[in-house]
């Protein structure tokens, strides 16, 4: 019974198999710099274990003839408060070449952590990384213009962190209700 359920859980939908095939190519090139594949049916993903390799992995994913991840659909920030980490999740797709899509997670230390910028790989990442910085406070090494994008430039704190406390006043105006 247990075995049967486990087997049923291991059957991957066709879309996930596509992602797995793409992942295997990346794994074959970068080895332990990337984590195990997670066959999440909504969005299969892997994690970049060695963040310093992130730009190389990104360039490989974009340019390799078997991958052609030429489109960054989204870049989101995450606060892993319990693990004292911040992270990003990049949703990548290949428009006009392959049906595969995959998410890549990169993490860094929560305080003073930094992640290499991929704004030079996908231009979409430029504003998205600025937004992640604005909301979570991780810096992006090598970003061409890392400023806050939504909050005022002299805002205090990073609003989407789980322990965020809003400031009392902004330029003499009361902020909380």
């Amino acid at each position, binding site marked *: 019974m247990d075995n049967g359920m486990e087997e049923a859980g291991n059957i991957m939908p066709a879309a996930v198999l596509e992602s797995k095939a793409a992942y295997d190519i990346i794994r074959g090139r970068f080895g332990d710099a990337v984590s195990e594949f997670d066959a999440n049916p909504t969005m299969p993903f892997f994690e970049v274990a060695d963040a310093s390799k992130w730009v190389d992995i990104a360039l490989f994913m974009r340019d390799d003839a078997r991958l052609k991840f030429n489109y960054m659909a989204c870049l989101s920030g995450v606060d892993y408060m319990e693990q004292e980490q911040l992270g990003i999740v990049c949703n990548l797709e290949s428009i006009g070449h392959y049906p595969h899509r995959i998410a890549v997670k990169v993490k860094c230390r929560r305080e003073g952590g930094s992640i290499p910028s991929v704004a030079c790989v996908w231009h979409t990442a430029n504003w998205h990384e600025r937004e992640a910085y604005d909301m979570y406070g991780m810096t992006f090494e090598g970003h061409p213009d890392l400023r806050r994008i939504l*909050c*005022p430039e002299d805002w205090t704190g990073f609003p989407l962190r789980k322990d965020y406390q*809003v400031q009392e006043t*902004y*330029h003499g105006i009361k*902020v*909380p*209700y």
Partner: protein
Amino acid sequence: MGLLDANISNRNVLVTSVDNVMNWARLSSLWPMGFGLACCAIEMMATNASNYDLERFGIFPRSSPRQSDLMIVAGTVTMKMAEKVVTLYEQMPEPRYVLSMGSCSNCGGPYWNHGYHVLKGVDRVIPVDVYVPGCPPRPEALIGGLMKIQELVRMEGLGISRQDALKKLAEKSVDAQQVIDQVRRATA
């Protein structure tokens, strides 16, 4: 104007007070500043457009605060925008009026608790004359608010401060629930 419809003889001479004429002119040509901040602006635009046709009240948006006497704060005022709203308000010539349209500019609306970036009521930075509730308010509600502004203008006069005018207006206020009940009884 009932007077204009009446058959006026005697060389069209009317006797009235300066206050009356001035107030009639001012309330019949309220020029709001043309700017919108969020979804309320869509309702404001709909009110300006042909179906509701604000121009029949002499109300049409101006592109410059220096030509406006009414500010319709239509939408969510972010902390970033708050200071700009103050600047725009200060650029408007007096006498000027502020209508706060919708829950966001009234009190922060749905952002009152977790909206770190939202000013919890535009009355924290500029004085508001009329609040129009709604999220967003329908054009009818906005027109109702504009007519309240017109009533306020009508209460003003030479030597009467805005505070006194507001007091006079408050004395004339009607309990909304009574009116609603009345209409419901009549239509039941």
